[in-house]
C-alpha cells in the first residue's frame, strides 16, 4: 500500500471509532473487549483508569504505564497519536500546572473528542493538535518526554517518526513508547490487509528493525523494558484476520503461530545530552 493510502485508511477507521460512543473497543474492526478491561490487562491501575474522563480510554493502546510513571512535575510531554486523550490526561496529572502535555493525532474526530473530554473536566494543561507524527508541528528541542502508545506501528516510515521525536526532544530528553512488533515476518496477505493494518498488527515491523530505526535517528540507551505476546483473543476477534486465516491453504499459518510472532513491547531511549 502507498504511504498516502495508508494514512487515508487509518484516518477513516480511527475517525469512525472516535464517532462511536466508545462503548465497544478499538483496534479497528473489533477486538479486546471494553476500554477498562483492556486497560487493566496492559498494566494501568484501577485508580488510573478511574481518574481520567469517561470516554478517554477507547481500549486502543497496548499500554504505557512505565512512561507515565517517569514524568516529573513541570515537564513538557508530547504524545504521538493521542487518540481520545487517555494517556495525556494521566500525564497531565503528573506534570501539574507548571508542566504541559501536548497530544498530536492525525484524525480530526479524535482531536475533537479529546478536547471535549478535557473541557468537560476542566483540564487546562493539555492541548490537542491535528498533526502527523512523521511531520510534527512542534519546535526543535522543546519537549522533555515523548510518549506513544501503540501508534508508531501504523506509520509508513517509522524511522522518520523517530527522527521527528529526536528533533523535538531537548538534549537529555526521553522517548518512551509502547508498540506492536513482530518476531518473524508476517505473511504478506496479513501484512497487506488494510483492516489488519488498523487492527494494530500488520503495520508492525520486526523488532530488530524497529529498534535499529531508533538508533539511526540518534537515540542512545535503547532499552526494552517489557515484551509480551499480544493477546490472541484480540486477533481472533478481528474479522479481517479471521477471514485470512480461515484460508489455510493460501497461507499455511495458524492463528497460534501468528499470535506467537506478534509482540507488544515497551521501549525507552534517550536523546544524548
Amino acid at each position, binding site marked *: 500500500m502507498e504511504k498516502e493510502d495508508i494514512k487515508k485508511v487509518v484516518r477513516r477507521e480511527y475517525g469512525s471509532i472516535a464517532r462511536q460512543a466508545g462503548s465497544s473497543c478499538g483496534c479497528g474492526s473489533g477486538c479486546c473487549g471494553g476500554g477498562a478491561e483492556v486497560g487493566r490487562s496492559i498494566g494501568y491501575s484501577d485508580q488510573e483508569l478511574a481518574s481520567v474522563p469517561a470516554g478517554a480510554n477507547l481500549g486502543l493502546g497496548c499500554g504505557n504505564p512505565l512512561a507515565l510513571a517517569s514524568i516529573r512535575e513541570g515537564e*513538557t510531554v508530547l504524545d504521538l497519536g493521542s487518540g481520545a486523550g487517555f494517556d495525556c490526561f494521566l500525564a497531565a496529572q503528573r506534570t501539574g500546572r507548571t508542566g*504541559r502535555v*501536548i497530544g498530536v493525532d*492525525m484524525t*480530526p474526530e479524535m*482531536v*475533537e473528542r479529546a*478536547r471535549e473530554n478535557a473541557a468537560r473536566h476542566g483540564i487546562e494543561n493539555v*492541548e*490537542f*493538535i*491535528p*498533526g*502527523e507524527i512523521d*511531520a*510534527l*508541528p*512542534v*519546535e*526543535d528541542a*522543546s*519537549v522533555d518526554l515523548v510518549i506513544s502508545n501503540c501508534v508508531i506501528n501504523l506509520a509508513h516510515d517509522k524511522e522518520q517518526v523517530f527522527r521527528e521525536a529526536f*528533533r523535538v526532544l531537548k538534549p537529555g530528553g526521553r522517548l518512551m513508547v509502547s508498540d506492536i512488533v513482530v518476531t518473524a515476518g508476517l505473511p504478506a496477505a496479513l501484512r497487506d490487509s488494510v483492516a489488519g493494518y488498523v487492527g494494530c498488527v500488520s503495520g508492525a515491523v520486526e523488532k530488530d528493525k524497529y529498534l535499529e530505526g531508533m538508533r539511526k535517528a540518534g537515540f542512545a540507551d535503547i532499552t526494552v523494558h517489557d515484551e509480551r505476546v499480544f493477546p490472541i483473543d484480540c486477533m481472533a476477534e478481528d474479522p479481517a484476520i479471521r477471514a485470512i486465516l480461515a484460508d489455510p491453504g493460501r497461507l499455511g499459518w495458524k492463528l497460534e503461530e501468528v499470535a506467537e510472532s506478534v509482540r507488544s513491547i515497551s521501549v525507552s531511549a534517550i536523546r544524548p545530552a
Partner: protein
Amino acid sequence: MRRKLLDIICCPVCKGDLVLQVTEEDEEEILSGSLLCNACRVTYEISEGIPNLLPRTASED
C-alpha cells in the same frame, strides 16, 4: 488553542515560526483565526479552537 501553545508549535513542513492572526478569542483561548508560515506560504486555520497543523504545501491551497 491557548495563546501559550504558540511558543511550542511550528510549521509542520519547514519547522519555521508561525504568524498568528486572531479572528475570535475568549478569556481562555483563541477560537478562530489562522497561523501563517511565511516560508512555505501556507496558512493553517484555527477553527473551533483547534489549530489544524496537518502538513500542507502551497500547491494544495
